[in-house]
């Protein structure tokens, strides 16, 4: 750990990405990337959830508001969900929320959903590297303050989708 590398790092924008990985597929795949010693960008902070279906859009809002430059969700491939269909729920919420983020001025590259199975350590590496570079190119996320009631609104909207959700 040299001072050089510190100064060098200070000069370059290092994106901060929060990742929510499901316990059964993507978190395990990230572990596999580790045991396979696959090197990837250190910009992602992984938070474990049991299922991508637990990913609350509020977490995404929270992450962006608290300074994340990107949010990544990792779940099991369609049909492989440990809880049968949590990943489909995650996908619906993702698709809907992506369009809302656009209205909030957040580029779509900053919010990404990937299906990564437990055996795809190399995909974890690929996706994280790719996303880090994309966001590095976009630059830091600049948010004008997002009032907290907005987040509440988002949730209410999504609750509505939940009821009608089967249509999506």
């Amino acid at each position, binding site marked *: 750990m040299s001072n050089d590398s510190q100064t060098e790092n200070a000069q370059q924008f290092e994106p901060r990405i929060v990742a929510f990985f499901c*316990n059964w597929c993507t978190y395990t795949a990230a572990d596999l990337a580790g045991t396979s010693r696959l090197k990837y960008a250190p910009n992602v*902070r992984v938070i474990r959830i049991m299922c991508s279906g637990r990913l609350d859009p509020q977490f995404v809002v929270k992450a962006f508001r608290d300074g994340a430059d990107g949010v990544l969700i990792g779940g099991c491939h369609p049909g492989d969900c*440990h*809880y049968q269909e*949590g990943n489909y729920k995650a996908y619906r919420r993702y698709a809907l929320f992506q369009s809302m983020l656009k209205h909030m001025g957040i580029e779509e590259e900053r919010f990404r959903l990937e299906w990564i199975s437990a*055996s*795809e350590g190399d995909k974890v590496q690929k996706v994280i590297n790719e996303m880090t570079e994309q966001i590095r190119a976009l630059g830091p996320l600049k948010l004008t303050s997002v009032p907290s009631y907005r987040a509440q609104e988002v949730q209410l909207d999504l609750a509505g989708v939940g009821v009608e959700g089967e249509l999506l």
Partner: protein
Amino acid sequence: MSAFDIQENGDFRIGVFVCDCGINIAGKVNVSAVAEFAGTLPNVVVTREYKFMCSDPGQELIQNDVKEFRLNRVVVASCSPLMHEATFRRATAEAGLNQYFFQMVNIREHVSWVTENEYLATEKAKALVAAAVRRVKVHRALESKSVPVNPDVLVVGGGIAGIHAALTIANAGKKVYLVEREPTIGGHMAKFDKTFPTLDCAACILTPKMSSVKAHKNITLWTYSEIDKVDGFAGNFTVRVKRKPRYIKEEDCVGCNLCVEACIFKEGKFEDEFNVGLSKRKPIYMPFPQATPSVVLIDPETCLHFKTGKCKQKCVEVCERGAIDFNQQEEFKEINVGAIILATGFKTFDPHRISEYGYGVYPNVYTSLEIERLVNASGPTQGEVLMRDGRKPKSVAIIHCVGSRDRKTNAYCSRVCCMYSLKLAHLIKERTGAEIYNYYIDMRTPGKGYEEFYDKLLQEGVHFIRGRVAEVTNWAMVPSEEDKLIIRAEDTLIGVARRVPVDMVILSVGLEAHDDAGEVQRLFNISCSKEGWFLERHPKLAPVSTFTDGIFIAGACQGPKDIPDTVAQAGAAAAEALAMVDIGHVELEPNTANVETVMCSGCKTCISMCPFSAITFDAENWRAEFNEALCKGCGTCVVTCPTGAAQQHLYTDDEMYEEIEGVLHYV
């Protein structure tokens, strides 16, 4: 619950323990810096760095600090929680704290092993530690739920792995269901003549085990059956089994074969599956003489009655027991079991995919499995090695690694081919005196008595040529090559391209996962490797467990392996399953969802979200009711709850927010 669970004056007293993991973490992450940083975080009263936190002294360190510093929260930064979360929770509990007042930080798999830059690795580790310190403050004391376990066990697959696992469990006094998709158990091993390296007869060691399965009072054997549906969780699975119609009343058939003799087809006319197409069978047949159960079956694809409806039904006439039932329908059985062992085996590589080797083009190119039948005393030629044209081969080439160690097909080594090739070389040499040429890349003979067997073959005068075969062709350059198959390969030991004319070619095909491994994986909710092999929970420490509690794997469905390894693994899986069902109850992770009734508005949104029907509506009180026994803890309902009434233990909104803030605000 101990006094430590309650925060004294609202005070959190957090201990952070950072592990070096030898040099696994410390080699990349500046562990002292991480520990020092953790000490600056609010409410952290002690931080430690230690070489191996998971070792006994490491755990003692945690326990002593809990007592000495009156800690009420513990954070360990080490490896993946999938590896040691249970270990540290136990240590926390033994120190007198609620085991869920603990949070684990993964700085090995997710940091030190995947990061190039030491500075950035250390920064990342700090962020993750900061998040855990914040998160652990809002952890709640939880009790893990203990549920009774159904003591019965289901074994899927009736090859040597399934047979051995079933017998082991049944002998321990537990009830076992053994489900096999083919009409008989025995699997691949039943097709072999001899087994390496001892050359003992496969049938002699296998068939007694097969009959014990049939005779065992604790084993329910369902062949020609498939698993249709799996529900429930560790300790309490509900499984639906589809029993395919064999058009024979299994309980009435005594296996006398009179019906087979009486069949209107005087000779076998259809490809015999057991002899891999080297002989013909009738539409009504016994798969092989030692088939277990000893019950015939009718193939509706070829039976005249099913095809035309105009058969004289001689089979029905001769069967005194009236066992033939053309109206038999597929049947479904529902069973409850506590544990499941998957032993679904493998398939051999289809060499049509490597057209250079001429399989399917030149009749005298065989797969190793065909040769197994050909050298088998109960095979289509009674063990005489005859080629498809009736000749006895004078020279034989055995091509190793067909569909293995080849990026175009399978990159992995199939592990068994070197040894079975040696075995076949020995058997063919013994029976025909033919010259035998083994074309290999590397001879891989690690195993008890294996290298010695290789040496024995060298002494016997079998030829070994190191080189991957380029092609098997019939174009002759010189008269001595006429009417032969010519093997073209580079002999890499002498650096010369060689042509060797032979009569017969054997392709030592590799092992592959079944085509439907993906479907089976989904059915049982486990994971597969890219190649389709079932994924073990840990390659070294949990080799027969899967990521789904209560489901174990044994044999070649987990990866290519030989009979000794398969049997050893089957025994291990049986022991794991027994350990689970024998204790009578299973501890469930308390990550279930629950509802704060006061806040529930009765909107019913969550009900439609739950795939397990764990949520019902209480119309009287106008609120959702959560059944924790049915909840599997995905947390999907929590997300949809508009009021925040639904929460998931261990993953509450508060805990998640603290973690998110933690990873982002650590500096």
